[in-house]
């Protein structure tokens, strides 16, 4: 116990050392600091790794991908005959100059050695002399005041100071030398010379001159060889796609040495500027926008194309295409050329968080809080919308936004804008609003002026002035009113007008159709609504009882066979389709007509074809008989299935209830309905739907599950909504069924859903102001010049009326009608190729035709109002397929005309070329030319019988008004050049001239050389003249004058250009009946 008592418990506070815990904690602290540093420099900078790997991947690509490919390409070029020839010549020349070179080189050896030997001595002597000279020339200090007082002269003695004397002495020493040098003398033996300064310099100059002379001699000898080599290089340069293998090798060396960050050279490739762990960023000051995407995607702007597949194909890289994508170059160089990343950045188009470089997920903006996630590949084109909002069609020569174009088109064509406002899609109504504002301003101004005029103190002069002003306003108002009216006329809703439903369709068919249109016609655009019981009858009753059209005329049935011919040959299939053998035949732009007989009234359809009154359906100018035949044919296609009788549609009480339901479902968005003219849209505006906060998108009861599945995004919302518009209403209870989601189901195909989603995803608004106080739109949106604007506007009209269904606008386009069996292959009646019967290509149309004429033609393609000929085509009278009369507004015509002009890069102002009138003699010659070329064998001339039966080329008699003279000239010279595949032959050739040693000159065409003999066909001669090539004074040459292949006797003596003559003749005189008669062929 005592022992224990002595061992008192120790005071834990005073005795506990704490060293161990503090040491452990300190160690852990150091560890945590290392962790923090590692985190800072490695975990949060993954781009360093990518950059490291890029260097390796890039080097591998150069060595195993690019080099072999370029070598192969070079090899192919080296096998070209011209290259081989040059190579031979070079070899021969090399052998020739080798001797000369060797001799000169031999002579130069001692010279070069001499220069080498004395260079040091000369250098030292000069340096000494110059340094002393500086000291000497500097002179002495002077005092300005003193000099001025002394009348501008120095005071005191001119004698040198002792220091200067010393310098002078030193200089003299340097000049005197002597410099002892040993040089190689004439007999190649060493000679020792002792020279002063000047002699030394002279010796050096002498050696230099000797060297220069030797090199000049060498250069002269090598000149031809150099030229040949330059030509060879030129061939390689012109033919080799991509860099030369030698350049690639240099690049490889650079990347081996890791010449990282050295220079922006070599060859303009980025290898010289390869990053070394730094953040690479694009900074757009005006938007305060920073994109650091290239920190990982280092190769984006690599000038050599380097696709992910290229990189993955290289074994050494050991990459899958999915992984290689980070190293690849931008897949569309053409796109980057137009959208310079320095100006637009990356994430502005692609989405994602351009500033973040710490994690892939964050940089791509896929984290929860980033509002603009990276667009997935299938929606890349969403990025275009923000700047190209007003373009319906986005394409240029080498880039095309296919998905987006489809999406925008679907939005327009399916009539989404009937319920959902989207800025820019209400083309006509928007325009009308602008013009009406202008008009009301004018009305106000006019009223004010008239009031002022009534004022008492007005003088007569002022009154007259006001009258004049009012008159000007009146004229302008007249124009404005016309414009507004034509805009009203061309406003078309997506669906057909329902004002004449009662006369147009069968009553019993109506309810079934409204219930589910896809049952009757799966191809219909009309979506399926989710009605409450009883709705369908009420809607049908309202439509059935509210009409304002007169009943159609009575028509007799026509001939089915003739009708089928009309249907297939007149061009109906460019827009419409029918089912044939279980497949669709024709184009889906307009409604499918297979079952039209099952729903429509015969008389109404006949009348409609004769005069379609709403929508974009044009008038094909058929006769009543043709229309009857056509309708009879169409009616023969249906199944004739009966419908349950629906007499309740006559019940006025149901109709009255129907009005509210029609309003509820917004039917008037797509259809014209009597009594619903002023209905507003029922859907939400979608202009900026892509940047709407997600909380405001109605995910309904699914919001939570979408979040869980990481599908709480705009993309998934749009896709789900488009696939099944009722989806987000699932699980909810509705006290009032009218509160259910209204959007009908369009049964869109997956690609259609993707296109529309792309379009909507891209419809975003940039809310934050830019630094320069202008909006994003002003600073960055596509703001084209006049031509671009014309093309942008033109597409809206051209697509609205489906001009692209019949015509080719750009080389390579395939209009749907062209691919139909009626226009492919040989004609069964042996009349030649069917291709010539299809609607003409409009490539170069803006250059080809006179815009004023084109406007006139678009207004009335028959070019006449004559009762008989008005049914035909105005230009290509021989075509069965008909250019129909569209109900185009003046503005639309203007836009189409300018669209063509802009596509052919024509200026906005058209100035028709002034052609010199023909003299009587010229007229006779030209007439003879037209006959001899036999223009009228093919061309139509306005003679109905000829035009319809024989002609297969456009009317010549309207040339003057229709054509642009420069085009005519170029066309006649070489039609195939302007329009490959045309049947128009080349009737003229450029004249050759051969001059003989004896002074004789032959001029003619068809110049040919064979062996020692040449031949040329002279004007008027039946056979070519042959001659000996040895007799020629100089090689044959072209004169630049074009003459007919078949020169008529009248024209033999004509000195002028035949093409110019015939152009002037056709343009100026060929609308004259006497001329036409005079040129007709004998039969």
């Amino acid at each position, binding site marked *: 116990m005592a022992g224990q008592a002595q061992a008192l418990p120790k*005071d834990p506070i005073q005795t506990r050392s704490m060293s161990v815990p503090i040491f452990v904690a300190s160690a852990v602290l150091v560890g945590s600091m290392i962790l923090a540093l590692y985190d800072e420099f490695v975990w949060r900078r993954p781009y360093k790794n990518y950059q490291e790997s890029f260097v390796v991947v890039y080097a591998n690509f150069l060595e195993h991908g690019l080099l072999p490919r370029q070598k192969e390409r070079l090899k192919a070029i080296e096998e070209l005959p011209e290259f081989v020839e040059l190579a031979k010549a070079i070899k021969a020349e090399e052998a020739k100059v080798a001797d000369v070179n060797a001799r000169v080189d031999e002579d130069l050896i001692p010279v070069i050695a001499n220069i080498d030997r004395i260079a040091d001595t000369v250098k030292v002597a000069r340096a000494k002399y110059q340094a002393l000279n500086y000291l000497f020339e500097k002179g002495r200090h002077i005092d300005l005041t003193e000099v001025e007082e002394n009348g501008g002269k120095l005071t005191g003695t001119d004698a040198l100071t002792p220091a200067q004397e010393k310098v002078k002495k030193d200089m003299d020493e340097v000049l005197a030398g002597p410099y002892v040098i040993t040089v190689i003398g004439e007999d190649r033996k060493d000679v020792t010379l002792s020279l002063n300064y000047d002699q030394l310099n002279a010796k050096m100059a002498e050696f230099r001159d000797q060297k220069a002379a030797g090199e000049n001699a060498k250069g002269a000898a090598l000149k031809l060889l150099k030229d040949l080599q330059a030509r060879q290089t030129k061939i390689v340069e012109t033919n080799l796609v991509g860099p030369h293998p030698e350049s690639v090798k240099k690049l490889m060396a650079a990347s081996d040495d890791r010449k990282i960050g050295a220079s922006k050279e070599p060859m303009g490739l980025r290898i010289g500027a390869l990053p070394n762990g730094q953040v690479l960023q694009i900074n757009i000051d005006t938007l305060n926008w920073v994109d650091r995407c290239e920190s990982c995607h280092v190769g984006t702007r690599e000038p050599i194309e380097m696709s992910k597949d290229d990189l993955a194909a290289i074994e050494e890289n050991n990459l899958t295409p999915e992984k290689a994508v980070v190293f690849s170059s931008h897949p569309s160089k053409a796109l980057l050329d137009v959208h310079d990343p320095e100006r637009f950045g990356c994430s502005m188009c692609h989405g994602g968080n351009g500033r973040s470089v710490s994690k892939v997920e964050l940089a791509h903006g896929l984290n929860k809080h980033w509002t603009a996630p990276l667009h997935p590949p299938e929606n890349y084109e969403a990025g275009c919308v923000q700047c190209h909002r007003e373009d319906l069609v986005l394409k240029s020569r080498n880039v095309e936004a296919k998905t987006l174009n489809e999406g925008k088109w679907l939005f327009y064509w399916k009539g989404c804008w009937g319920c959902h406002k989207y800025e820019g899609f209400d083309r006509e109504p928007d325009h009308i609003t602008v013009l009406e504002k202008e008009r009301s301003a004018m009305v106000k101004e006019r009223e004010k002026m008239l009031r002022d005029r009534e004022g008492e103190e007005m003088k007569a002069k002022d009154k007259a002035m006001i009258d004049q002003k009012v008159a000007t306003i009146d004229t302008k108002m007249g124009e404005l009113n016309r414009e507004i009216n034509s805009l009203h006329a061309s406003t078309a809703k997506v669906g057909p007008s329902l004002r004449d439903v009662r006369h147009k369709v069968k009553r019993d068919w109506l309810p079934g159709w409204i219930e589910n249109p896809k049952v009757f016609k799966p191809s219909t655009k009309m979506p399926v609504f989710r009605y409450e019981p009883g709705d369908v009858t009420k809607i049908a009753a309202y439509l059935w009882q509210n009409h304002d059209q007169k009943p159609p005329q009575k028509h007799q049935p026509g001939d089915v066979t003739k009708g089928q011919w009309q249907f297939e040959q007149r061009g109906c299939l460019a827009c419409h389709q029918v089912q044939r053998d279980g497949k669709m035949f024709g184009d889906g732009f307009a409604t499918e007509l297979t079952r039209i007989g099952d729903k429509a009234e015969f008389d109404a359809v006949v009348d409609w074809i004769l005069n379609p009154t709403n929508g974009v359906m044009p008038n094909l100018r058929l006769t009543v008989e043709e229309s009857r035949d056509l309708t009879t044919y169409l009616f023969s296609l249906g199944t004739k299935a009966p419908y349950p009788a629906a007499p309740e549609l006559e019940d006025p009480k149901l109709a009255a209830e129907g009005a509210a339901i029609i309003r509820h479902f917004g039917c008037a968005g797509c259809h014209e309905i009597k009594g619903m003219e002023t209905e507003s849209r029922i859907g939400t505006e979608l202009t900026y739907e892509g940047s709407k*906060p997600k909380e405001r998108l109605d995910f309904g009861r699914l919001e*939570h599950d979408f979040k869980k599945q990481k599908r709480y995004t705009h993309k998934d919302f749009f896709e789900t909504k488009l696939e099944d518009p009722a989806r987000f209403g699932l699980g909810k209870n509705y006290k009032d069924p009218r509160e259910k989601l209204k959007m009908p189901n369009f049964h869109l195909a997956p690609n259609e859903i993707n296109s529309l989603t792309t379009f909507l995803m891209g419809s975003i608004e940039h809310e934050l102001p830019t630094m320069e106080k202008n909006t994003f739109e002003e600073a960055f949106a596509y703001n084209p010049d006049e031509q671009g604007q014309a093309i942008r506007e033109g597409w809206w009209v051209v697509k609205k009326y489906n001009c692209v269904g019949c015509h080719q606008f750009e080389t390579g386009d395939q209009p749907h009608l062209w691919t139909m069996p009626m226009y492919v292959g040989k004609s069964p009646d042996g009349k030649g190729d069917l291709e010539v019967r299809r609607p003409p290509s409009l490539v170069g149309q803006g250059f080809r035709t006179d815009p004023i004429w084109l406007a006139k033609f678009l207004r009335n393609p028959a070019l006449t109002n004559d009762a008989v000929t008005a049914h035909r085509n105005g230009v290509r009278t021989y075509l069965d397929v008909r250019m129909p009369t569209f109900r185009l507004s003046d503005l639309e015509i203007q836009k189409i005309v300018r669209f063509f002009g802009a596509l052919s890069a024509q200026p906005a102002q058209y100035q028709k070329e002034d052609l010199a009138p023909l003299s009587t003699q010229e007229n006779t010659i030209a007439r003879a030319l037209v006959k001899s070329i036999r223009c009228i064998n093919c061309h139509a001339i306005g003679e109905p019988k000829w035009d319809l039966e024989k002609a297969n080329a456009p009317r010549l008699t309207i040339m003057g008004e229709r054509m642009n003279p420069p085009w005519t000239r170029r066309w006649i010279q070489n039609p195939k050049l302007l329009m490959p595949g045309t049947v128009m032959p080349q009737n003229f050739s450029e004249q050759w001239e051969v001059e003989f040693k004896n002074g004789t000159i032959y001029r003619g065409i068809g110049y040919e050389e064979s062996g020692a003999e040449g031949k040329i066909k002279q004007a008027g001669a039946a056979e070519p003249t042959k001659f000996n090539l040895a007799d020629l004074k100089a090689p044959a040459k072209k004169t630049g004058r074009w003459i007919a292949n078949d020169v008529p006797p009248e024209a033999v003596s004509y000195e002028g250009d035949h093409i110019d003559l015939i152009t002037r003749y056709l343009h100026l005189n060929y609308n004259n009946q006497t001329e036409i008669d005079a040129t007709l062929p004998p039969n």
Partner: protein
Amino acid sequence: MFFAEFDGHQLWELVSAPDNVPIVLMLFMLPVYLWMGFRAAFANDRLIAELEANPEMAKTHHRKTYPYHPSWDKTVSVWPYLLKMEFLAAIIVTIVLIVWSVFLNAPLEEPANPTLTMNPSKAPWYFLGLQELLVYFDPWIAGVVLPGVILMGLMAIPYIDVNPLGNGYYTWRQRKFAVATFMFGFLVLWCLLIVIGTFIRGPGWMWFWPGETWDHTRVVFEVNKDLHEFFGIRTLPENKWKMFFFGGGIVTAFSVISGGAFHMWFVKFAPKTYAKLSKIQYGHLQFLMITLMATPVKAILRLGFTIKYVWVTPWFNI
């Protein structure tokens, strides 16, 4: 449960948000430290009782912390005995902060958009208690007066506190009133309100139980009336004096009743302290106690009885 569907995902989102992690931590740390504090306090209390049994020791021995041995020094120096512990604590806190900052990123959200306010818009977690008070009082009271009272009250404590015991050691027995009051003010009126603001308040500052889905479109019946409206006085400008006197009366009555009750209790259970307090000191104590009690009462009235304000005046509302 209070609601139909349990939503574990929502709950996880809430507790795993970097901003809320400290609160989750607080939920666990508070009880732990409370327990540690009270364990020390009770141990000391026992020691004090032991020492008090020995009159000599009771007067002279100041080191009333457990463990204890009579042979130990009466006092220990700050350096090194306190400072080395503090140094260790500083190191551990630094480690925790560094590791925390490496693995939990700053809770950045969307780029700021002046045209769009987030819903719910929450203050930083340490201010959520004050933000929660905004539900019960008007901004003037909740945002200015009450924080002011809290600060002034904390500053006043040394001047009101006349009990010399309990300096430098944990004790319950010697400072029951002070400890209980503090625990009520801190745990209930500060921490609980932060927890409510963090985990309970969802879109529209509506009440969502943990695990209930935060539905942005939720609509609840929340028509709150001023107290006087139950007594036939409508909240109208022309009734302003009626409302003023009615509410003023109620508040005065509450103050008198609760103040009186506190007085009776205080006099009975702490007569010695009461005797030591001057009138001014006691007056301040009364005021702070009434305010302390009034705050939860108002919260209960608002949450339980849909009473918006008790006292409506043109200048402030309570």
